[in-house]
């Protein structure tokens, strides 16, 4: 069982949380312009990384807030926990994310900024959390 450190409540057992899949998936900025292929990508295609993977979790039986987590999918080691809307804290974010993900991805508003690939301090990222759940985030 994972021991997950909720940014609001501290360390709790995995059973208190709900997994929300890949983080930083942007809602299409111009949905009307998407073709079937692009809709398929948005609806059904997610990264399935073997290694460090950025994903969303909901502290469903605690503060009921969403946050992001960087976790190794082989060792299950939790490498970072950071607020929704903040960029992925390791510099080595997969290149493909910069094409589609915007900083606004997690709040479903439109935006144009690509996520920063600069290393963010993990400690700093646990403060000012924008913790609103993205629409449709309940999987």
């Amino acid at each position: 069982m994972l021991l997950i450190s909720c940014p609001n409540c501290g360390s709790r057992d995995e059973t208190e949380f709900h997994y929300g899949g890949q983080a930083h998936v942007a809602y299409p900025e111009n949905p009307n312009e998407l073709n079937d292929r692009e809709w398929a990508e948005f609806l059904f295609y997610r990264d399935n990384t073997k290694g460090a993977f950025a994903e969303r979790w909901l502290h469903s039986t605690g503060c009921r807030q969403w946050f992001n987590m960087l976790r190794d999918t082989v060792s299950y080691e939790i490498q970072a926990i950071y607020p929704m809307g903040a960029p992925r804290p390791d510099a080595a974010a997969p290149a493909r994310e910069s094409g589609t993900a915007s900083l606004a991805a997690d709040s479903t508003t439109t935006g144009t900024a690509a996520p920063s690939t600069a290393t963010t301090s993990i400690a700093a990222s646990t403060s000012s959390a924008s913790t609103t759940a993205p629409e449709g985030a309940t999987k």
Partner: protein
Amino acid sequence: MMGDQLPEHPDFLWRNPEPKSSYDAVIVGGGGHGLATAYFLAKNHGMTNIAILEKGWLAGGNMARNTTIIRSNYLWDESAAIYEHALKLWEVLPEELEYDFLFSQRGVMNLAHTLGDVRESMRRVGANKLNGVDAEWLDPQQVKELCPILNINDNIRYPVMGATYQPRAGIAKHDHVAWAFARKCDELGVDIIQNCEVTGFVKDGNRVTGVKTNRGTINTEKVGLCAAGHSSVLAEMAGFRLPIQSHPLQALVSELHEPVHPTVVMSNHVHVYVSQAHKGELVMGAGVDSYNGYGQRGSFHVIEHQMAAAVELFPIFARAHVLRTWGGIVDTTLDASPIVGTTPVDNMFVNCGWGTGGFKGTPAAGLTFAHTIATGTPHELNKPFALERFETGALIDEHGAAAVAH
């Protein structure tokens, strides 16, 4: 004793050749699906200059880790067709492969615990019958007659309100299934190469022409991916994406018991499934861990949940000891149906996404995938399971509809 039925442990069943520099086709992944594919490529399509490349040992992936439940009581026409075809093959394969892998048609019950379950189950029985799949609805008394150790009292949280029953369903010895296919593949000239990990692909434009491995580059005209939990890792190497998520799925066994459990019982609602192995262990499984994982191990709370369900349904299990637990990596899709067919890369084909329930599909997956690899076109039975369905929207939504996922 059930154990008396077990065949002798087999002697060497296949050669361990060095990889050749080129093959007409290479199958990546030496699980049940890779073996069945190679077998039908050789048998039905005369392609014998082929190799199965397995990064570990033969059938040591999900093939060795599953709970071996075989059934075809799926809801939708497309699924019923492919799984029923598989079941018909299971019925003739021991003779065809000249190897008894103890396919035991002891029947499978899918329990209903709520009114919603009851309606959904009856609907599925009707759909099964229309598709020529044997199916019955059982009331709680009939459930008890078939499996006397089941608790059908209505004072538990989720009482048994009935069950669907497929008499032709059952279990098989998975290791023996793999050995049976491997032995025939070898006889037909297929090279089975273990400890050979595919690490990349060679392409000429958009056409695959070879595979890179830890034992050198192998040229080939065609590549078939049968890598279950790792298909998306391989697809990424080849330059395309798959709508697949890999999750840990666990199973466990008890110590040996006298025969007490004559059939297979599955419950989607309280989520446990139980059968008794030929030797006497109670074999149990439940759901996947919610998160993605490649670690071949899962969370303890999933086991805890499944044991609670098992003990409520089968009170006599309260004193049984867990002997062993383990995990596999299953490849799930959003419509809970497999992906079998062509890929965006020419001459590369994929068979994946069987998720938590692909053991039962092994013979039909092999047969139809072999057809696709040999001819470059879909087989009638795997056509609906093409990758394109995520674009066209023609999903085959078996989630929940097919009874428990396995």
